[in-house]
């Protein structure tokens, strides 16, 4: 099997996983809207939790995966790890955008304002910017090995930075008591809601896997093409 065929096979797997997870996502939406009770305090606006929380969780996990793969890349120097790290970062950035858009949509009816420097929203914004920088830098390095090494360095540093950002935002919040807000996630959630939330998280993880697999395959095909062009010239 040639590398091209293998990459195309990976892409197809990614497509299938994505298709399945999109179907499942539709199922989760139906369940969230029709079969899960409306929140007593927040009303129908609370339904956005079933998108907001899963994409937030998935994006954070995507960045963590990028950091861990970066670390393994530096140890093993296998180009595939770099490709997977980059794919994970890119999907993480996309999920962060979803998180940063759904947050204010939820916030407006609940908090009465589009944007609030809520701890989690703020952390995500900063981490999102960090990984946008990561992606910009990848474009600014031409040599693929150098790009992989530089990206790995940023990925590892990002992994270490995330807890510091959380801590900073947390300290900032706790040392500056704000007027009482409705917390975005109720501490104890009725079982039906919890099942909906957990199944949504599962579906978004699957969607993540589908996206990353496809992105990985595209990167492999791009590399192959660059290689062929160099050989022909």
């Amino acid at each position, binding site marked *: 099997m040639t590398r091209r065929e293998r990459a195309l096979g990976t892409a197809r797997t990614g497509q299938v996983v994505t298709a399945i997870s999109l179907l499942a996502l539709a199922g989760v939406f139906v369940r969230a809207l029709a079969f899960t009770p409306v929140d007593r305090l927040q009303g129908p606006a609370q339904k956005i939790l079933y998108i907001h929380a899963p994409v937030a969780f998935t994006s954070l996990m995507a960045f963590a995966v990028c950091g861990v793969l970066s670390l393994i890349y*530096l140890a093993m120097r296998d180009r595939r790890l770099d490709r997977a790290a980059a794919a994970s970062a890119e999907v993480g950035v996309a999920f962060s955008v979803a998180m940063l858009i759904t947050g204010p949509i939820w916030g407006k009816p609940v908090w009465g304002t589009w944007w609030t420097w809520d701890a989690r929203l703020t952390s995500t914004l*900063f*981490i999102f*910017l*960090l990984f*946008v*920088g*990561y992606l*910009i*830098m990848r474009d*600014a*390095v*031409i040599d693929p*090995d*150098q790009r992989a*090494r*530089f990206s*790995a*360095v*940023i990925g*590892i*540093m*990002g992994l*270490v*930075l995330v807890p*510091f*950002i959380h*801590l*900073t935002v947390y*300290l*900032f919040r706790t*040392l500056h008591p704000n007027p009482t807000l409705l917390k975005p996630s109720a501490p104890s959630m009725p079982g039906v809601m919890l099942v909906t939330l957990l199944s949504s998280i599962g579906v978004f993880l699957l969607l993540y896997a589908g996206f990353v697999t496809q992105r990985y395959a595209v990167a492999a095909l791009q590399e192959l093409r660059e290689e062929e062009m160099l050989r022909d010239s």
Partner: protein
Amino acid sequence: MPVADYARVVWAIIAKDAMVEWRTKTAFLSAMVFAILVLSILFFARDPTAVSSLDVAPGALWVTFTFAAMVGLNRAFLLERENGAMDGMLLTPIPRTAIFVGKMGGNLLFVALVEAISIPLFILFYNVSLAGRLPQLILVTAMATVAFVAVGTLLSAMVVRTRFAELMLPVLLLPFLIPPVVSAVQVTARILAGRPLSEMMPWLKLLAGFDIVFCVLTVLLFEATLDE
């Protein structure tokens, strides 16, 4: 390599950078002009009837330091790249980490000098009365400066070999500056307000943790930024 030799090499690199900067002065003067401009612009960037200058002072100080430091950091490895001087260092038997520590030392010296001149100006411009709390301000300045010079030096080693190097450094560096700079602003605000040390402790602990973790991490990662 014995510690004494290691220290000698690190010092040689710091002294060389200091000499080059002393001869050219471009980066230092730019950073200084930049610092004075930012300090004064931020003084006017408020409604004087509603916000006192003391309220914006801590933020103004740290925005100034951050951006002035960036001028020096951007140059740090440009100097080694210009005539391939980095090759000259890599050929020698000195440990790679000594090169990083030396470059970081040079940057620390640069930023410390900018800060040493900026702080009196800051006190003057913002009419700050420190009343014996200057050592506290120096302590937090030192702690935060180590943090962003460590990260900045490592990123500078990489960005000089990317396209649009001058643009890349702030984009990559600023997210890493959030913890140290926010901490430094918080501590500075409490120092200026004459609050007790206990109120600053959580932030100082965060800063100290950041310093330790990122100094170790950047030294370890430096080798991965070199050509191979």
